[in-house]
């Protein structure tokens, strides 16, 4: 399948790494990702969950920044904090007697935007970004996704 006016395609290739991670190859780029979800605070690699949050931030916040730039809105800096809540972590670990099906039951994104732009115009740009962000729109169909933007100056 190739890109068309109706749809676009992205694909990657991975190889499994010892310990449950993967090496990800896309175009000429490579990234190593750890386990899908890690409980190890000393885990040396980004977990799949962390990468997912990064992808969501790129999807929403990155798009917002581009829209704001196109509209010549004065923005000095954008920061965002994201979190994801996993339901049934013991089931993920294969614990005998655990109940439930592991899933992301809530994902939260809070962006902080500083700059000289009219706050009302920033809100318009944020809402536009949410409408156009494909990962955000996919995830919110599956679970609770809260994506908020706060103007800090």
């Amino acid at each position, binding site marked *: 399948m190739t890109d068309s006016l109706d749809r676009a395609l992205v694909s990657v290739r991975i190889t499994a790494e010892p310990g449950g991670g993967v090496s990800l190859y896309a175009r000429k780029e490579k990234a190593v990702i750890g386990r899908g979800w890690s409980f190890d605070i000393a885990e040396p690699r980004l977990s799949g969950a962390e990468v997912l949050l990064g992808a969501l931030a790129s999807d929403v916040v990155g798009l917002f920044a581009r829209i704001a730039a196109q509209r010549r809105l004065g923005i000095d800096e954008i920061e965002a904090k994201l979190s994801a809540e996993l339901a049934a972590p013991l089931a993920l670990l294969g614990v*005998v007697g655990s109940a439930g099906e592991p899933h992301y039951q809530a994902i939260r994104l809070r962006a902080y935007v500083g700059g000289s732009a009219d706050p009302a115009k920033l809100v318009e740009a944020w809402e536009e970004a949410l409408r156009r962000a494909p990962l955000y729109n996919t995830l919110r169909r599956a679970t609770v996704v809260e994506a908020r933007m706060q103007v800090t100056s």
Partner: protein
Amino acid sequence: MSTKPVIVGAVLYDPKVSVIWEIIRDFFESNQCPMDVKLYADYDLQNDALMAGEIDMAWNSPLAWLDAQRRSGGTCRAIAMRDTDRDRVSHLIVPADSPAVTVADLRGKRVALGAEDSPQARLIPQGLLARHGLRPGDYEAIRHDLLVGLHGDHIGGEKEAFFTLSRGGADASALIDLNWEAWTKDGTIDPVKYRVLATTEPYDHCVFAVRDDFPADREEPWLEVLHRMSYDDPTHREMMDLEGLKKWEPGRTTGFDALAEACELLGFFNR
């Protein structure tokens, strides 16, 4: 050395604990002693598996050890324990200005306890009260049944018991010495505002339990590798710190009398 993995059962009171068991398993694997870890949601399930032969060994709480002995007719063996599992005590603590001087002064008072199945914060402390003539009913036991089935491994109930005391909802609360030390250091408990009223006799905590028929040619190599862990070796230290010990000791079964007595008194296994 046998190539058949030794299957060790462990109860998970926090997902992060899975990381410790992975590190321990990797240590055994790297010492040419294959080991698999099977995780359980509670000690009943783990002992079911031990009795059924689905696992070779169970990292058992003191209550789970008694239960394994009860189920097996006293034939299970405790083959190893942490140095920190030996000679623990629990305290009954009261506000510093409490009029209570002896345990008997808690007659008619409210005693905050941990979860129903917590040896350190419910069963053994209630045994201490009984030894001082206070049977259940002579005082109001306020239990904090958080995550029952984990035998108090999850300290939530024990901590809630203290919070009940601190809010004035109880006249005393029970906790293990390790938590008294930790919580008076980290600010959870202000040691100026609370004092130890009474302390239990020493008791033992967790053990690696096996069935009587666990073969020596699998047990001995496993124990030999376990005892290779040295706190002096920096590569072992992190693992031992995570598991809360400085040295593995042989298992012993002499430290469970107070718990057995409390279980009998409270009819724990008949409930």
